[in-house]
């Protein structure tokens, strides 16, 4: 499926297989949210056919986000990648500093179209929260962002950014106090306020229609990149590397290439301290197995009784126990491959790109860079690799500074670790 969707009837039960990518996806939600999901689906399908809507979105992408984002070749970095040619798709140069704005502009335009006056969002690293706060300011919508308390501490700069943009940031103190708990809290808010509130879910997870809708708002990444790399090199890349938390930047860049069967699609997960240590966020190579979390049937890191297991990653944006259902489908079908990148490997790539190219990547995106270093070495000098540089690293300066011992007054705080922050 995935291209053609059966529309929900809006009456009675949904048609069988609604929102499924193979076995994955679906709509595992409280009945109270079904009406809102159907309303959203009807509006987004109508909007995509409505020239006024698509024109307005395209114009915002051009004049506000700064699309198309450029493609940058990084030869000095590539020297550490077996000599393969490496190109970065520069989503870090978008307004607000990451790919997240693509989806947020689409969803806030939809919220306005549906007559909603308030938007809510979850955020891990803070990039999606910042993007939502930005779009809400632009469109005059009230905005509340839920963020795990642990994440508010390791991404304090982004908390302040959201507040400066006029959003209210609510630290979530339940459970592991990270992204998954922020999603729970956003759903709780949505159930209670659904009449005037739209939940701007930030990635390709969640109940139908979110996985498909969010991918569609991000597929511009791959559409642009495909044209750009053909223009630059005259051929398609051998591989595309993207980090995968929920997996929105990866689906965005993969989508246009799915039919190009010779292009390897490689998703890089948060490997934490190593999959073998149990402290990681790798759904596909760790203890992950199919289950339901946050409204979708997909790979979930869970125990034998179906309880969600806490994840670990230096990157707040990858520290999530579930993954978009389309990734689960691509994994099982073999069309895409997924590998863990440890915290140490990601931080090494972070430093390397900064010092060879003068580009500070987000720690999330550094996982994709570390993946490119490995695949580049496999491919050798004839290889051509496209990397989704999903975000910029300004927000991570403090974490990286501590990691490399440049700021030594406190320890790196990783979700779930016992170590206390000493300020």
């Amino acid at each position, binding site marked *: 499926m995935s291209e053609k969707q059966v529309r929900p009837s*809006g*009456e*009675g*039960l*949904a048609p*069988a297989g*609604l929102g499924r990518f193979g076995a994955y996806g*679906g*709509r*595992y*939600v*409280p*009945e*109270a*949210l*079904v*009406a*809102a999901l159907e309303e959203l689906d009807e509006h987004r399908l109508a909007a995509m056919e409505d020239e006024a809507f698509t024109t307005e979105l395209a114009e915002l992408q051009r004049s506000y986000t700064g699309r198309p984002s450029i493609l940058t070749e990084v030869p000095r970095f590539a020297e550490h990648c077996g000599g393969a040619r490496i190109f970065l798709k520069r989503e870090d140069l978008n307004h607000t500093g990451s790919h997240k704005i693509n989806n947020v502009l689409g969803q806030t335009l939809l919220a306005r179209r549906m007559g909603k006056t308030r938007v809510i969002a979850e955020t891990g690293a803070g990039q999606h929260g910042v993007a939502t706060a930005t779009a809400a300011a632009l469109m005059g919508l009230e905005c509340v962002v839920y963020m795990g308390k642990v994440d508010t501490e390791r991404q304090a700069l982004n908390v302040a950014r959201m507040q400066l943009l006029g959003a209210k940031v609510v630290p979530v103190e*339940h*459970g592991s106090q990270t992204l*998954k*708990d922020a*999603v*729970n809290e956003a*759903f*709780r808010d949505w*159930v*209670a*306020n*659904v*009449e005037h509130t739209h939940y701007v879910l930030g990635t390709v997870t969640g109940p139908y229609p979110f996985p498909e809708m969010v991918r569609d708002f991000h597929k511009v990444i791959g559409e642009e990149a495909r044209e750009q790399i053909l223009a630059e090199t005259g051929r398609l890349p051998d591989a595309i590397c993207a980090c995968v938390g929920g997996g929105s930047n990866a689906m965005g860049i993969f989508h246009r290439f799915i039919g190009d069967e010779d292009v390897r699609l490689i998703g890089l997960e948060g490997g934490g301290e190593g999959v073998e240590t149990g402290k990681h966020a790798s759904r596909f190579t760790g203890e992950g197995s199919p*289950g*339901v*979390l*946050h*409204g979708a049937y997909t790979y*979930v890191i*869970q125990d*034998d*009784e*179906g*309880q*969600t297991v806490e994840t670990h990653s230096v990157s707040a944006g990858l520290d999530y126990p579930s993954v978009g259902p389309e990734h689960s489908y691509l994994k099982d079908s073999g069309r895409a491959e997924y590998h863990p990148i440890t915290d140490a490997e990601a931080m090494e790539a972070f430093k390397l790109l900064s010092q060879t190219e003068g580009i500070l990547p987000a720690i999330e995106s550094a996982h994709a860079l570390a993946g490119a270093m490995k695949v580049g070495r496999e491919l050798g000098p004839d290889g051509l690799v496209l990397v989704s540089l999903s975000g910029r690293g300004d927000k991570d300066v403090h974490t990286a500074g501590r990691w490399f011992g440049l700021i030594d007054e406190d320890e790196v705080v990783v979700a779930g670790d016992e170590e206390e922050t000493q300020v």
Partner: protein
Amino acid sequence: MTKLDEVLAATRSEGRAALVGYLPVGFPSREGCLRAVRTMVEAGCDIVEVGLPYTDPLMDGPVIQTAATQALEQGVHVSDVFAAVREVSDAGGAAVVMTYWNPVLRHGVREFAQDLAAAGGSGLITPDLVPDEGADWIEVADELGLAKIFLVAPSSTPARIAATTNVTSGFVYAASVMGVTGARTSVGEAAKGLVEKVRATTDLPVCVGLGVASGEQAREIGQYADGVIVGSALVKCLLDVDLDEGLERLAEKTRELAAGVRG
């Protein structure tokens, strides 16, 4: 006919609503929970909803979240649910299980249903499984004669209510408000309107839940619904208190609610 059907037929013939009480298993402790469900039945709960604590309870407010976290930290297991179900049955109440879907999926839908039936349970309430996604469960439940208790909400369209009640058995769970679990001072008019809409589609008993905290609210709702569901207000009796005192509070609150449903 399940024990649940018998209880709801009996309360209907008495001309009153049934009192349905919720408690997460393993709370306040694995042992304490068994005493608590027995207390609830002895103090007047006709039906007990045994909850399975889950790490990501996105339909629950702070009280039940706290209780679930406490139970999980103490190492509660799926098998404890069936022990609590047996305890409710032994005490003379009807037991149903309320659980998020992933633990059932992981246990195996058929295995879970078989274990539930073997423990004397009457059925399952599934807050995050809408019938659209419930084909496996519906098939197994029908085969084993278990109640499939689906929810309807104030936002449900008439067509969805009809489609949902069509596959529901035992009773229809009418969510009184748009929101998560937790005591509220007023349940509001939406509940009454929703019950009327449900009754237009089915003769099944309709029980109202979310927000009910007092005997007075139970009395009001009991005038138009077949059952009154109480969760957080009962759970709260056992939070941050030693077990014996908590059980006394629980018995007292249950008696208040039981008097309420008797008008």
